């Protein structure tokens, strides 16, 4: 569809939020007691923050929850019955105020979950999701969206993208049918644009992702991996805060006769992620696991999914207990 641009005044933005929040689930960022930024369902407008750089966790859980039941079962004497999850119960959710990097990550996730066979859980959640993104007027040393082909005001993945103006009002780019239908239902809140310039942060480009991708081709045995992963302690923090990491584990949990099969987030950084039943572990050292993380995002995904597996949000680096700074490593990789 043809995109259009409107203006929304600060007071109207509050009205829009309150009206959306009154009729559906709105997932919006707030600053918690411990100063961390987290997304919550339907917080009051006063609580919602417009001044955050990044939330501690990404918002991928809206489409790919940290735990999700796949089906329920009940074991009888001779046979078992399986109950499917009713996907129609998945509610409509408006994602409010997530930044362009997080929104672009939904495309990367889609390239995995809808690569071959469509993952019906993911697809249904995406279908019910409306994204009202917010361009960034703040950034820090961990941000590197410009190095992976994005920008503080990329519209990728958003249905509506809000960008702050100097006077506190917002420019609203209406990008999809879903976005247009929201604007149409609250058309009295939107005005025609005054052409004022938006306030954006600048994020310095640290590397050229195409160069990285081409360098990775053939760098599998490079000593770089061991040298640069010595300090990695092998936790799953980077994968769990990452907006595009899509690995999951499948488990059965039975209580008495009844049980459920669920999937939950997993991480390729864990030592047992690739352990075979035989006892053999093809990625038996941390350097191999760190290589996998970078290769997957910057070589395998561009190759097979036609999408980068990284949106430059910087969470993996800011959340890492040992400062495994991915942007720094990619910068070094393009010159090996």
């Amino acid at each position, binding site marked *: 569809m043809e995109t259009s641009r409107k203006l929304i005044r600060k007071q109207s933005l509050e009205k829009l939020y309150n009206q959306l929040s009154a009729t559906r689930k709105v997932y919006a960022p707030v600053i918690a007691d411990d100063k961390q930024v987290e997304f919550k369902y339907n917080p009051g407008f006063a609580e919602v923050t417009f001044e955050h750089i990044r939330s501690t966790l990404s918002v991928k859980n*809206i489409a790919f929850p940290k*735990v999700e*039941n796949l089906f329920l079962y009940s074991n009888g004497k001779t046979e078992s019955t399986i109950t499917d999850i009713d996907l129609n*119960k998945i*509610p409509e959710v408006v994602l409010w105020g997530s930044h362009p990097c997080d929104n672009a990550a939904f495309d990367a996730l889609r390239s995995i979950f809808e690569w071959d066979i469509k993952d019906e859980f993911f697809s249904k959640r995406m279908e019910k999701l409306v994204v009202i993104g917010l361009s960034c007027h703040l950034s820090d040393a961990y941000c590197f969206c410009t190095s992976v082909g994005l920008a503080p005001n990329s519209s990728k993945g958003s249905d509506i993208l809000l960008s702050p103006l100097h006077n506190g009002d917002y420019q609203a780019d209406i990008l999809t049918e879903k976005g247009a239908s929201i604007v149409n239902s609250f058309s009295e809140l939107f005005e025609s644009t005054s052409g004022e310039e938006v306030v954006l942060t600048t994020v310095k480009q640290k590397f050229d992702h195409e160069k990285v991708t081409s360098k990775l081709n053939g760098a599998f045995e490079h000593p770089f991996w061991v040298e640069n992963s010595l300090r990695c302690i092998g936790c799953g923090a980077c994968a769990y805060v990452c907006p595009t990491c899509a690995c999951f584990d499948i488990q059965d949990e039975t209580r008495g006769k009844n049980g459920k099969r669920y999937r939950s987030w997993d991480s390729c950084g864990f030592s047992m992620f690739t352990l075979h039943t035989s006892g053999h572990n093809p990625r038996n050292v941390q350097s191999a696991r760190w290589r996998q993380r970078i290769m997957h995002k910057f070589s395998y995904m561009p190759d097979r999914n036609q999408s980068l597996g990284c949106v430059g949000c910087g969470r993996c680096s800011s959340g890492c207990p040992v400062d495994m700074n991915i942007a720094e490593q990619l910068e070094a990789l393009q010159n090996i």
Partner: protein
Amino acid sequence: MSDFEPKVVAFVCNWCTYAGADLTGTSRIKYASNVKIIRFPCTGRIDFMLLLKAFANGADGIIVSGCHPNDCHYTSGNFHAKRRWIMFKELMDFMGVDMNRITFSWVSAAEGAKWADVVNTTVTRLREMGPYVSYRDLVNKSVEEEVKNE
């Protein structure tokens, strides 16, 4: 609450308390039937995780019991257990788990009457305390967490 009957799980060692409980029976001493006894080779084998699992599966109270110090069939299992229970109790207290719901005791094979007393006092106390709602809520709430997006 008057008709509330607490569910109690007793983790006991094979050599002393289990034999003691047997003696309670052969001595024809009556005691509260709320208790489900689980027999272990030694108190040293009673992992604290088992106690947590009992609460998670709906126990209102727990009894942990074994040989008196110096009487362990394996010489020192109960001494090790004692240290572990001290640490476990302090940790649970710190995390706000109700330690009045766990009775630790030493009951020898000759103390049939003491076993009946341990069970009866525990059950009476638990009857007054009522069901362990807060722990059950925690478990139930956790089950719901998985589906909160639906």
